[in-house]
């Protein structure tokens, strides 16, 4: 079954829409669900043109497709556990928060907190992801626990903050402090990163681009050949400041003071 939601034009296009109800499972019971525009509860059909193709008896068999301007629609796919969501354009904040299963594919850019505290499933973002991609929540010690997030473009600052499990793969570059507070999981950055892995406790981070402002509290422990990629990585242990035993592998580094 396919549920196609096309965003309608709005009087106040910048007001956020909160749409955690947009997950495949909820469409088993039809399309009579509500979302919030600011502090007003709205029926889905007030904000989207709705087209349903076919039927399904399990969420696994449901694909929700979002079209039109969805850049201000927040929390799509929150607590999603099965099925697929495809976003044709950009998506608002908190897409796929707490997601435990299923797929989300974003053809445009994702706003901040993409896949925050994710537990399982797969998110693919073709464009860029904003700050706090694959991160944790304020005050919470455990961030993303499982599943995987792949971003074909760049990610903003604090990417994979508190990463605890699962895999984060950024094909472009990360902003400031990628992998800060990492506790586990695997984090791959194909491009550059600035001050990565500060305060890291555990887990593995591989950076194939250039590291800017390498932090002074990582201990060089040797080198590692990656035959499949035909590269040699410098291996660091850290963050020593935090009694960390995480592993950071870097292709090439530039210290802030060099």
């Amino acid at each position, binding site marked *: 079954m396919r549920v196609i939601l096309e965003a309608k034009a709005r009087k106040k296009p910048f007001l956020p829409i909160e749409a955690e109800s947009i997950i495949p499972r909820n469409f088993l019971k039809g399309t009579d669900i509500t979302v919030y525009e600011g502090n007003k509860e709205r029926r889905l059909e007030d904000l989207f043109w709705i087209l349903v193709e076919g039927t399904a008896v399990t969420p696994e068999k449901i694909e929700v497709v979002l079209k039109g301007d969805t850049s201000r629609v927040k929390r799509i796919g929150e607590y999603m556990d099965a099925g697929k969501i495809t976003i044709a354009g950009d998506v608002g904040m908190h897409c796929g928060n707490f997601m435990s299963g299923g797929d989300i594919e974003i053809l445009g850019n994702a706003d*901040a*907190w993409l896949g925050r505290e994710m537990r399982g499933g797969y998110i693919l973002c073709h464009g860029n992801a*904003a*700050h*706090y991609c694959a991160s944790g929540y304020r005050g919470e010690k455990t961030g993303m626990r499982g599943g995987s997030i792949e971003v074909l473009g760049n990610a*903003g*600052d*604090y990417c994979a903050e508190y990463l605890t499990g699962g895999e984060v793969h950024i094909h472009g570059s990360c*902003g*400031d402090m990628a992998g800060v507070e990492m506790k586990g999981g695997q984090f791959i950055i194909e491009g550059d990163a600035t001050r990565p892995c500060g305060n890291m406790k555990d887990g593995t981070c591989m950076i194939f681009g250039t590291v800017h402002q390498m932090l002074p509290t990582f201990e060089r422990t040797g080198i590692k050949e990656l035959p499949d990629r035909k590269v040699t990585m410098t291996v660091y242990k850290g963050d020593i400041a935090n009694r960390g035993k995480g592993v950071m592998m870097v292709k090439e580094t530039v210290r802030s003071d060099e």
Partner: protein
Amino acid sequence: MKVIMNTGRTIPQGESVERKHSPEYESAASVCFIHPVDMMVLGIEDGAHIRLSGPDSRVVLTARASEMVEQGSVFVPLGSYSNHVVSGETHCTGMPDFKSTMVEIIPTEDPVLSVAELMESLGGVRYAH
């Protein structure tokens, strides 16, 4: 020349912060402290006007020589004038880069605007107290 703009409290700015329509506030908040060497490079004297340009905005300030700022950076008191060039980007922390904005400085003959004029330029309506 490209420099890092730092902003913060100064005594004169703090003394007049509750009287923003006053000449005291305007003169206290519309100054830009620059290292003497940088002023030489810019070819300006203490008291000259400079135009400070951020990513998407510009503001005219009065240059003041100060050895308390490093070469390559300038200090502008926090408030209406400095914020005219600070970007709204907060890196999702809620806090703009008030103390680390890259700006371009060039000498200018243009006048320093009043707070009311600055606000008008942003769509406000001047209130004459």
